[in-house]
């Protein structure tokens, strides 16, 4: 699957990191880093992450 985070919108809330730790994490500078093409088995986690992002910055494109 394909995941895109609009980094202009993202405000490092980290809700996605709680919901899908295998896909989203904070780098050493405290900025969001993520896997853009996570395995299909993680879809539910990623959908959950997209739901809980307060800025609705996460898009699942395929």
């Amino acid at each position, binding site marked *: 699957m394909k995941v895109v985070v609009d980094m202009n*919108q993202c*405000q*490092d*809330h*980290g*809700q996605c*990191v*709680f919901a899908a730790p295998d896909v989203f994490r*904070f780098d050493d500078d*405290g900025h969001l880093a993520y896997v853009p093409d996570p395995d299909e088995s993680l879809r539910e986690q990623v*959908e959950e992450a997209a*739901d*809980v992002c*307060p*800025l*609705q910055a996460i*898009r699942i494109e395929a």
Partner: protein
Amino acid sequence: MSATVVVAGASLAGLRAAEQLRAAGWEGPITLVGDEPHMPYNRPPLSKEVLVGKAPFESLAFRPRAGVADVSWRLGTQVVAADLERRVVRLDSGETLPYGGLVVATGMRPRRLRCPGPLTGRHTVRTLDDARGLRAALTRPGARVVVVGAGFIGCEVAATAVALGAAEVTVVDPLPLPMVGPLGELLATSLLKRHEQRGVRFALGAGVTAFEGGDRVTGVVLSDGRVLPADVVVESVGSVANTEWLDGNGLDLTDGVLTDAHLRAGGRPDVVAVGDVARFPNARYDRVPRRVEHWSIPTDTAKHAARVLAAHLTGGDAGLGPFAPLPTFWSDQHDFRLQSFGAPALGRDDVRVLDGDPDGDVLAGYHADGRLVGVVALGGPAAATAAARYRAQLLQQPALTA
């Protein structure tokens, strides 16, 4: 044909309920009825990013999941009554809709002040249209702004008004500190200082008794006799649940819709309540039913309620334990963020600084019977990161027994 699920209220909670019904395997028809003319949109930026002009109004629309592409939307339509015995709701168009399952997602509306004086120039912030009107008023040069109510929406709007260059911004509240109800004294004092340092004035310990002006507001009269000149007044004095349409069905509607531990109302397996309007017991805490006006709650309630309702409609068993969400809340004001996990209000009498200090980045722990029940971070990203570290601990806490 299978029975329809009617979702009353087409905002975050209604949308999530429809999405989660599909995720829970409900393939029958779903109709969402919402009285706003808009598709569901995100409210938090209405007092922050969008009000200040950093993000456009268009950016607020939610992207519904593909699973709900086939649901029907009745927007600009109000549900005016329900007969839960006969399983029908009545719309303002006069039409009645029969249902097999009903999701109550009608949320809240702002409480209004009833004191005498003109109405023009007085704003609330709940809807897109409210925020458009308020933005137009706040961006007029030299605006003098009085915010009534020092809760989180009032504090956010005050910060936004300063950022927009308002000539004067004053927050009025009968309580001695901003957000003292949810935060307690330690952080509320720190919050007050931060706002004052950034140009917000406060008139605390005073209520509003009247508004001055002819066709429109020119001043706010306080209970201590002072009059604050005002071009723009924002009323952020709490909210009222939209439940009138459920009257006459024997439900407990004293403050939202009372539900059981599975978000069902009135002991009916076919009626669930979600989002701001639901007053539910939280098995994580003392089981006293409460409404929780946090953005995380529509999604959490919808997940649980949709599975319970789908199971009822298809003759299965959801097999879920009692609803026990970890409340999560944030608020952005000026250049700082407030981030809360758990139920700090339950531990307001025993607040300890866990990290940092109240003048800078601070993390406070709220305790009940000596146990951590909530954490609140105030400050920059470092404080929020520190709060996140305690989140796992809060999730692992055994339930409090009353």
